[in-house]
């Protein structure tokens, strides 16, 4: 209960501290990490016993006050955020060592604010509060994109910002309409509302806005330049975490707040966009010659998978036995993608620093001089390909099973085909890394910089090997129907 408040407050406090005393930024971040892990642990333990935890700060009562609720998915996402943060903080403590200029001054507060915004969005059940979180997240993310101060990065940040602002406004418009129709904004309450004629349009507006922020095809065009232009630790946060938050809101809207007004065709439409994203992103990744661009297009593709959950566990399907598998599957997928993607960006950053470029031609043969980083990169690639024993495989396994069980085998084909395509585009950097002896002189990364991606990638793998552990947790507070499972 208090853990929820701590999870919101600690990163914020850390952010303020790192502005007030920049020299202590790393220490503050590390402290936040420790606090967050403890809080998540306590929260998880509590939830396993008592079910979803709800807290309303200020004791205002829900219609007026803002509800915060931690269910299984939320804890999984909180843990994902904390893990990625821990990894990125470790790596960034070298690249953005305090006192090494404007960029490092900017990074720490932004990163911690991002954490706070993530946690807020994961825990919040109030539509307007979510809007605020969404905006905060966007602004922080834009700041991270612009961190390098180069013209390209600034242009990318602006493009991102325009998309995100349009998205926010569409979302806000939807929120306004909901409030206009029902006079309430809490998701839990909304699920029990009497449907109004405007609900459809409101949901549509919010969905379109969230899709723009999640970089769902065809609104993904802002993502590649933005994520590729940021410094590697920032990219790790941007690609691994940020889109997950808006996805989570969209998912909650469709499955928890207003599942009653959704027709199956709408679910299919969303999933179709996801499917196109999987292939479009994958094919574009295949065309890239820069490592970071390959990784970001892979993000475009991987985000597409998430949206396949809609027809598998949404709408009427939510009442079916297979939806439980789909729920857990998508959570696994999101979490392991975040871990692997962050690991991959951190590794890419090390390569880039080592040889001064991230072109495939330049990183040739680095496997020999940077074996640990390459190992981490390989493990992360494994996860993104969805191969066992990674967590992504568990996710994929459950989603495909759900697809087949529900008779919608074509989504299974998308999942498998996307996996193959990802193998195809991730193979190119892997092959380059192993090609020949590599340059003799490189800028060596520090040991803890190398350990950070390895830690993240290993976490993604361990998630697959010990996937039974988080399962009970994820199940807490699923939508009612999805209680029985495969």
């Amino acid at each position: 209960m208090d853990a929820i408040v701590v999870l919101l407050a600690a990163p914020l406090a850390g952010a303020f501290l790192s502005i007030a005393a920049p020299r202590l930024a790393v220490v503050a971040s590390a402290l936040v990490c420790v606090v967050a892990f403890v809080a998540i642990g306590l929260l998880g333990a509590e939830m396993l016993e008592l079910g979803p935890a709800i807290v309303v700060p200020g004791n205002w009562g829900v219609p007026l006050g803002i509800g915060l609720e931690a269910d299984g998915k939320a804890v999984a996402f909180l843990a994902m955020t904390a893990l990625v943060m821990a990894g990125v903080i470790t790596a960034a403590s070298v690249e953005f060592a305090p006192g090494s200029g404007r960029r490092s001054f900017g990074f720490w507060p932004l990163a911690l604010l991002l954490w706070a915004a993530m946690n807020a969005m994961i825990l919040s059940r109030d539509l307007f509060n979510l809007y605020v979180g969404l905006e905060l997240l966007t602004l922080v993310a834009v700041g991270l994109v612009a961190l390098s101060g180069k013209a390209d990065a600034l242009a990318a940040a602006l493009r991102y910002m325009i998309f995100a602002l349009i998205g926010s406004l569409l979302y806000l418009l939807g929120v306004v309409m909901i409030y206009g129709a029902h006079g309430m904004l809490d998701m839990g309450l909304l699920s029990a509302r009497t449907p109004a004629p405007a609900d459809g349009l409101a949901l549509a507006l919010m969905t379109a806005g969230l899709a723009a922020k999640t970089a769902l095809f065809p609104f993904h065009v802002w993502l590649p330049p933005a994520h590729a232009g940021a410094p590697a630790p920032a990219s790790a946060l941007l690609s691994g975490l940020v889109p997950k938050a808006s996805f989570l809101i969209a998912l909650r809207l469709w499955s928890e707040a207003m599942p009653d007004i959704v027709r199956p065709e709408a679910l299919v439409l969303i999933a179709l966009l996801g499917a196109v994203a999987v292939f479009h992103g994958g094919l574009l990744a295949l065309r890239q010659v820069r490592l970071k661009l390959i990784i970001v297009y892979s993000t475009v593709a991987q985000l597409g998978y998430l949206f396949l959950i809609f027809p598998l566990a949404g709408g009427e399907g939510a009442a079916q036995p297979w939806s439980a598998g789909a729920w857990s599957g998508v959570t696994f997928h999101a979490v392991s993608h975040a871990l692997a993607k962050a690991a991959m960006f951190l590794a890419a950053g090390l390569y880039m620093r080592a040889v001064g470029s991230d072109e495939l031609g330049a990183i040739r043969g680095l496997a020999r001089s940077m074996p640990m980083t390459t190992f981490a990169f390989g493990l992360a690639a494994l996860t993104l390909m969805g191969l066992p024993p990674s967590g992504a495989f568990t996710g994929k396994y459950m989603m495909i099973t759900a697809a087949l069980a529900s008779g919608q085998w074509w989504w299974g084909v998308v999942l498998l085909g996307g996996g193959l395509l990802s193998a195809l585009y991730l193979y190119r950097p892997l092959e380059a890394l192993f090609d020949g002896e590599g340059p003799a002189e490189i800028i060596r990364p520090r040991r803890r910089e190398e350990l950070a991606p390895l830690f993240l990638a290993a976490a993604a793998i361990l998630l697959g090997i010990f996937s039974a552990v988080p399962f009970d947790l994820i199940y807490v507070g699923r939508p009612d129907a999805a209680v029985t499972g495969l």
Partner: protein
Amino acid sequence: MSVYLPLLILLSSLVPALLTFFLPERAHGLRNGLNLGGALIKLGLITVMLVSVGRGATYDFSMQLAPGLVLALRPDALSLLFMTLSALLWFLTTIYAIAYFEGKPNQSRFFGFFSLCVAATTGLAMSGSLITFFIFFELLTLATWPLVIHQQNRASLAAGRVYLAYALPASAALLIAILWLESVTGPILFSTPAPLDRLDDTSLRIIFALFIAGMGVKAGLIPLHGWLPVAMAAPAPVSALLHAVAVVKAGAFGIARITIDVFGIDRVEALGVGTPLAVLASATILWGSIRALQQDEIKKRLAFSTVSQVSYIVLGVALAGPFAVIGGLAHLVHQGLMKITLFFCAGIFAERAGVKKIEGLNGLGRIMPWTSVAFSLGALGMIGLPPLAGFVSKVYLGVGALQSGSAWALAVLAASTLLNAAYFLPLLYRLWYLPPAPDAAGDEGKPGLVVPAVLTAAASLGVGLFAGSPYSPLGWATLIVTREYLP
């Protein structure tokens, strides 16, 4: 003990693998000790298990990964056949590899993945459920890739690319087959027959085809065999392991599992999919041999020979008569012993005499007698010359073919024998009967290379000579099939 023994066996190669990754390059002694020690411990544990399974004991270790996703290790007699082979050959290959890589770079990486590969093979052998099998199957693919590209040159990278280009779509096919099946029947355990009646025959046929496509890539069934010859760019110990124990065998073993334990021999027959599979296997046997004839590189010739020989196993299983299955399963071991001998020797010829092409073999018999004798034994066994191991498999396969009414398979066996002779005998002729080139040189100074080759050659003679013994691979295969047919 009965719960943890399978896990211990798995860990006996997994732990050395993981530890090896973090060893510094120069820690030769520690690394070698770790790997050899792991191999010995594993051999010991497997012996314990062999004895008790022979007496009818069962082992079961399972761990839930997710609802419906259970990692189950339930070694049965068939598992043990494959495990014993892999453990034994792993031990020998480790000795060989230590000698082979002496003074070469990237040893920690190599031995790490090498052990991981064996861990995957062992896990695959012990898998008690379909999904466990798949997980280890994939792990095997992934652990093998770094071995294939170990030399990090253009050829090996191309080989790695081709390898994955075949392996990954195959695993996708496999996964879809497994999930399709399990989405209807629930998790499938090898020990209990799955309720396949819930699916219609057409679906079952498609699923079977998907299974065969998925496993067939590893087993080198045509037209999915293209990666095998290319993967020859790998170092010799890898080729040896790939061809004799790990990858190729995993495919054949998988087909055996699917046919015997998932579908059941009766259902395979009822669905009418056994004969097409047998025909495919036969075509592979012949085509592989013909392609082998065209090769002038020793390793490539051996690779195509593998394509051909592994399909004997598939043929045996597909023919689905008791004798044929015994022959197929026994060949699983027999081919392993013979092929690893050949690859060991090919590696010695390449390393110690600089010979990679067939022409280079001229007269090496007198310069490198031990290697040449071992090579000759392996080759003759492959041809099916009695009393070597290959002969025994062939007899059982032949009788089995007749028993299941597929007399045509006899013609395939006959033609394949002739073709095998056609591509192996010229090699032996060169070794022993042609004068060596003026600059030919070679020495067998490294016992670490020669002794494993001689031992496996002796083993492939021994298992043929004492095939009648209940402890021979043939005896063990008979036990498996007896248990299957007379439950």
